[in-house]
């Protein structure tokens, strides 16, 4: 055991010697993403965040490299290791919760490179790992409240990828948001079992509409299909992760946008001060890492605007808790209750 540690130490020292050569005043970040940087969803949110940081700090002070579409989990290990070992980057970002175990391993080997990964609140107890998450239940709740006010058919459809992570968090928050306005409104939830199957996601949206939904929402990169279906059928759309304004045309209502630049700037400052990690960040409405944006084409009434502002204020102040008692199994139970109501109809 000690021998292995020693080897790592020697290696790290030897490597640190060469690494310092590459560094100048530029802060360099490398980021790995599971889908395309322009997917209008999760990966794009990080790319936009990095771009925003660069605009803020200037290209002479901040540069970043990305590898996108790395959905093969093991490929991530190759890229992340290559970046960490190159010594060219002060911060290596693994943007996807599936990359966590890889970060855990690399961080113990490359102790003077700072790593960041998400979305998860877990730094593995290491001093050179930041982790980040988004309270996507907050935006989900907000969207749910608005959707509940806008629905006339009293049926709302949600298309999600697989029933885990951010997608599930958003779905639970959304359902609770709707229920807070009127528990009798149906929220039909379909997880299609894939992040990328656009045809199936499209047909899931059509099925929602056929079952009376006049509002749709959803997460992950395959929602471009449901957005198109919503457009075709003139049904309203609520989105998450990135702005889908460009695609949604006049059926978009509101988008929950992840502003990763908020936490990236803070991370960069800390790394500059020598703090390589050990903390986790959560984007919330309160710290303005989550921003609710209305679609440009959506004409919002004063009444609804008041509801929107009230909801955000409530979530920020802690008066509204999007998913009560997240720590235990309550969230799951409440979901089961929802299911029960649906099948009674």
């Amino acid at each position, binding site marked *: 055991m000690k021998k292995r540690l020693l080897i790592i130490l020697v290696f790290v020292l030897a490597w640190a010697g060469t690494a310092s050569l590459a560094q100048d005043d530029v802060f360099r970040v490398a980021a790995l993403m599971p889908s395309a940087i322009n997917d209008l969803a999760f990966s794009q949110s990080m790319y936009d965040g990095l771009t925003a940081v660069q605009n803020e700090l200037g290209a002479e002070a901040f540069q970043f490299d990305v590898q996108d579409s790395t959905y093969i989990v093991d490929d991530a290990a190759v890229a992340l290791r290559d970046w960490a070992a190159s010594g060219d980057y002060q911060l290596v970002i693994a943007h996807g919760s599936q990359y966590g*175990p890889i970060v855990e391993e690399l961080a113990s080997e490359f102790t003077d490179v700072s790593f960041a990964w998400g979305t998860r609140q877990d730094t593995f107890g290491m001093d050179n790992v930041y982790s980040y998450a988004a309270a996507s239940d907050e935006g989900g709740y907000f969207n749910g409240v608005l959707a509940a006010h806008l629905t006339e058919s009293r049926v709302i459809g949600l298309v999600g990828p697989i029933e885990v992570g951010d997608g599930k968090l958003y779905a639970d928050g959304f359902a609770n948001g709707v229920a807070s306005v009127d528990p009798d409104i149906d929220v039909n939830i379909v997880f299609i079992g894939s992040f990328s199957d656009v045809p199936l996601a499209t047909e899931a949206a059509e099925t929602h509409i056929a079952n009376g939904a006049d509002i749709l929402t959803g997460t992950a990169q395959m929602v471009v299909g449901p957005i198109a279906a919503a457009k075709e059928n003139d049904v309203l759309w609520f989105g998450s992760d990135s702005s889908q304004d460009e695609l949604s045309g006049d059926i978009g209502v509101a988008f929950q946008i992840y502003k990763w630049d908020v936490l990236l700037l803070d991370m960069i400052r800390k790394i500059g001060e020598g703090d390589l990690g050990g903390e986790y960040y959560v984007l919330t409405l309160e710290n303005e890492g989550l921003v609710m944006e209305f679609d440009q084409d959506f004409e919002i009434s004063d009444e609804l605007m008041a509801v929107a502002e009230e909801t955000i204020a409530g979530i920020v102040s802690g008066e509204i808790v999007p998913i009560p008692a997240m720590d235990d199994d309550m969230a799951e139970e409440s979901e089961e209750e929802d299911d029960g109501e649906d099948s009674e109809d």
Partner: protein
Amino acid sequence: MIVALVLALLVASVLLLALNANPLEAYAAMWEGAAGKENATAETLVKATPILFVGIGITIAFRGGMINIGGEGQMIAGALAGVTIALILGEMRVPPELAKEKGAFDLIIVTCSLIGGFLAGALYGGLAGFLKAYFDVNEILSTIMLNQIAVQMMNFLLNGILLDPAEAGVNNIPKTARLVTAAQLPRLSLPIGDPHLFARTRLHWGLIIAIVLAVIIYIFLWRTSLGYRIRAVGENQRASSYAGINVKRQMMFSMFLAGGFAGLAGVVQVLGLQYRLQTDGSPAGFTGAAGFNGIVAALFGGLNPIGAIPAAAFFGGLLVGAQKMQRELGVPASLITAVNGLIVVFVVSSEIFILQRSKRRVSLQETPDNLGSGGGKPADRASPDEGSG
């Protein structure tokens, strides 16, 4: 073969130029990413390992006249069984305080997991063979369908009973708990230099297992009567039947073995590399498409397990190098997908020229003749020797 590669690279160069990238720089980056440094070479071999396992299995299936497109599903089946066994035995045989003990190795856990993975993959592959033999269900159809079923089964189990207890919150990632150290395949290093070559890389013993098995399967196919029977069925079902070979049983058996090797690929990925089974919900998220790449490697290797070794290494390097190219030059990885496709097409197309040369010598009709024609009719004409070098 070489001409085909050069041709593919020429087309790639045109595409690169269209993307305003310097092709020479791009290939240099690719080479660096695939074989430039110790770690790059190791990653190439790491990538090649599952491709080789699958490739060996595909070789057996194709030699037996079965088109097995089910490598992905069989890998998943193997990984699911293997990780379950490793987790259970790990809990039984290793006290919690020793779970992370460095350098621990438990032969029983590892062996049982590998065998379990092999058997699970074999049964999953054998199912397609069974359906083909007794219900005339085409194996292309059934294996494509079984791939999708396996993925959903994996998602179900990883979100259910196999879910890492530490993940049992709301925001869970579909993955199992981490294996105890004793259940992991050790890393591999060569006693060259100091520190040893590959000592600081992810290279693991899975590679050695695969290479040894490749040799064993070569001997099996060409030096044993069982292997002969498999090849005989692949070459001519009717004649084999006349010769007293139980064709149905051989079909099942070759799919059983093919599935078993894909299963090994899956369990070795878990035991040797990731130390847990995890996915992003898509098939390739876990398998890395090795189930498909293995088919390509098998055919490049001339449907010979020994030939599959360099073929797998070549494809491993291509895939790993492509990533480097993307990082260095910002060239989209999709370009490499397209070029890989071209390489495959060009290389299989160039076989006709190799064939014409070899025809002047007496050609040995080694390649299965009715590959994929399951109708059971005799080849009613002189079959073209798809002879592969």
